[in-house]
């Protein structure tokens, strides 16, 4: 982790800005991506997130955080939203939000779970479910920069239908000898499935990962049990815990542990 700095003068406040919904992409039965125009957006780094705020007609407001899935090179900001069944915000975003609607947004936020081509590689990304979103921003950025940084993505989903960005990921890997993607489906595997078919374990990590002496930059994002397990196993496999950056995803950052 980083050294401390003297307390500088407070930065400019992150103001709420209106975000305009320009397009909505159905990613899976439970996931959509929102493509947004944010006037005066000052850019972001792959891995950062935003806060959004919905305001009801009676003034009631609710805030949530979403990772940015688009690379800094895109004009539009993409947020990928997964349904939380008993949630308040995600069902509205998935069921009620229409193209042309607006809501409040501020960001970008976070400066630790961030990767750019300048940081270099090798790059090792581990995602569970919608935890792919901030890692997708990194992969899209890598692609847009024509970076050749050796990159591995290990992506755990429940079923094939739940794999977010599947077509784009497949296409990315097809034309890129420096990018390898390993999928694991934990609940159901289709006939003829050649990927993995179990939850992430030590053997699976050992088979898909860089060696500790290659000094990979490691980013793990997903539900808390996946993140806890994968990061613990990576340390057991000899990776320096300071090279393993984690972010939890889910209704409130994860399930209770």
């Amino acid at each position: 982790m980083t050294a401390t700095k003297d307390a500088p003068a407070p930065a400019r406040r992150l103001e709420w800005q209106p975000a305009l919904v320009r397009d909505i992409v159905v990613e899976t039965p439970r996931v959509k991506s929102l493509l947004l125009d944010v006037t005066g957006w000052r850019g972001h780094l792959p891995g950062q997130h935003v806060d959004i705020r919905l305001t009801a007609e009676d003034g009631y407001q609710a805030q949530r955080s979403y990772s940015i899935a688009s690379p800094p090179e895109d004009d539009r900001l993409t947020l990928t939203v997964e349904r939380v069944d008993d949630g308040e915000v995600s069902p509205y975003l998935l069921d009620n939000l229409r193209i042309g609607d607006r809501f409040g947004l501020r960001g970008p936020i976070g400066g630790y779970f961030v990767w750019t081509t300048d940081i270099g590689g090798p790059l090792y990304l581990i995602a569970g479910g919608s935890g792919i979103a901030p890692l997708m921003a990194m992969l899209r950025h890598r692609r847009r920069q024509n970076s050749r940084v050796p990159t591995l993505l290990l992506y755990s989903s429940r079923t094939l239908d739940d794999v977010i960005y599947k077509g784009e990921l497949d296409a990315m890997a097809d034309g890129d000898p420096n990018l390898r993607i390993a999928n694991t489906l934990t609940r159901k595997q289709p006939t003829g499935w050649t990927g993995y078919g179990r939850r992430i374990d030590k053997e699976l990590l050992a088979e898909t990962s860089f060696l500790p002496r290659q000094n990979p930059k490691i980013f793990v994002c997903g539900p808390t049990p996946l993140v806890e397990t994968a990061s613990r196993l990576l340390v057991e496999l000899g990776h320096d815990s300071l090279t393993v950056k984690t972010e939890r995803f889910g209704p409130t950052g994860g399930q209770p542990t």
Partner: protein
Amino acid sequence: MTDTPISRGFGPRHREQTAQGRLPPGQYVTTDFPVLSAGPTPQIKVENWTFSLQVDGSLLGKWSWAEFEALPQTAFKKDIHCVTKWSKLDTTWRGVTFDDLLKSAGVATLPALYIMAHCDGGYMTNLPVADLIDGRAMIATRFEDLPILPAHGGPARLLVPHLYFWKSAKWARRLRFMRKDERGFWESLGYHNYGDPWKEQRYDGD
């Protein structure tokens, strides 16, 4: 922001759950206990654990696990508020207050006005001493009467419930008095230097 867009058809689903005035702005209640950490959870054995209090590179006090457990124990029942917007109500904790720690170390006069909390895994966070004294903070070793799980900061974490929860550093091992305020980990990465949930001080400049 010049205008606040209204989301037609949007409304609260869980408003009835929360007593008026109990939730800081922008927060919602969860009954889960979410885990948020920047890296892997350190696996710490209590036989290798020590806790120390420092100023200017010299030791004011140092406790083994057994010595720490022998200090006066205090119970807290508090609401906690995470900057990622969840709040958890009526959580119960047990541990050693900062006041009792100072007493045990024989510190009668505060040597400085700021504290940096240092943790296993390299995490750190800065706090004004005024927010730790007078029964406002403890080093907690029990959550809901059970040992704190490693993922939640066990064996011992700082508990400063009136500030956003990132100030309640997990895996706390060392408190260092500072004459000048310095920024900790999240405080150097765009988060607010103080973090009062009631003033919604989430990010720098809030």
